[in-house]
């Protein structure tokens, strides 16, 4: 069965932390289920997880991950590292390999080793890297990200880049849309930066060009 991963999500590390941006369209085939899906799970004040793929699978497994992260903190009296949290998720998904799970997630956080970003998916893949984009709109997002990314972006430039990447992806990808939900992971935790309608972003950039 070819499941459609109707989403665009992205995250990248830069000098001031990690920026995470996702769209908010949930599609069931050709029907738009909701325009306001929440594709970022706030695991704890220092950990975020994004969801792409099957909404049910992502929600279930990432909430289970949140439970395990909390138990880890209680048992070991210190917060779980991003690498450990992503490994727990990857191991959980790996056990169900080949059984039709559809999860493409990015685990972002800030721990003792600094900002962390891992890509985890239903194949059991787990990659650490400075930039990832998932979902069927990811190619469009990569186009914008790759042409505008520098590790020394200012905070505002990074927000603008992430916002633009999601907006352009929703513009071309039928299965992405809605609003851009953006988070910024800093040393003392994440903040929710904004929730901007993609049509506003597109219109503003068109006006700017005129």
């Amino acid at each position, binding site marked *: 069965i070819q499941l459609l991963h109707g989403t665009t999500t992205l995250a990248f590390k830069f000098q001031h932390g990690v920026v995470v941006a996702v769209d908010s369209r949930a599609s069931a085939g050709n029907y738009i289920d909701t325009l306001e899906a929440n594709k970022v799970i706030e695991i704890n004040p220092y950990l975020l997880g994004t969801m792409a793929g099957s909404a049910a699978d992502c929600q279930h497994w990432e909430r289970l991950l949140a439970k395990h992260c909390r138990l880890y903190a209680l048992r*070991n009296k210190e917060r779980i590292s991003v690498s*450990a949290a992503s*490994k727990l998720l990857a191991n959980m998904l790996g056990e169900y390999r080949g059984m039709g799970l559809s999860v493409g997630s990015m685990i972002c956080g800030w721990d003792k080793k600094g900002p962390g970003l891992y890509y985890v998916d239903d194949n059991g893949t787990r990659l650490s890297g400075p930039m990832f984009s998932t979902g069927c709109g990811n190619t469009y997002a990569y186009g914008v990200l790759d042409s505008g990314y520098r590790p020394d972006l200012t905070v505002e430039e990074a927000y603008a880049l992430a916002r633009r990447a999601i907006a352009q992806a929703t513009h071309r990808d039928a299965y992405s849309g809605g609003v851009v939900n953006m988070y910024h992971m800093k040393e003392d935790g994440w903040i929710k930066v904004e929730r901007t309608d993609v049509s506003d972003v597109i219109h503003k950039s068109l006006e700017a060009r005129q």
Partner: protein
Amino acid sequence: MAFAGLTADARIVINRARVECQSHKLTVEDPVTVEYITRYIATLKQRYTQSNGRRPFGISALIVGFDDDGSPRLYQTDPSGTYHSWKANAIGRNAKAVREFLEKNYKEEAIATDRETIKLAVRALLEVVQSGGKNIELAIIRRNQPLQIFSAKDIESQVAEIEKEKEESEKKKKKSI
């Protein structure tokens, strides 16, 4: 890990601890902290005090090492499954005498350098060990370095040095009297 008690039981516990260290590194990508592995061993021991048809492990253990952030740790466990963190401790038949010695002599000057610390450890054991250096084994673990086990020769020379110092301090005492 150093232990006192039934050697055969110790081998089982050590094996389980080794497997858990690797398992932890595989699932969490970080090496265990000394506290974590001590807690694991203690939980294992406790389970055997509360199950059918099993007897508790007949060992007390001293678990030493460094955490990832470089801080040194010493933990002691006993057959009941309790564990505590210590600055200095002893286990075994004559543990009480050695512990009393350490309580009196474990001071900042005594642990200021490697040499002084080794001397303190050897002196502590010499309190209860009869034939001196031949019945002592000594190991040092340093941050980010493998365990260094002393050769019999090095231990003998340490013991000889300590006996000489003892003689000299006794001579001084006699002189002052």
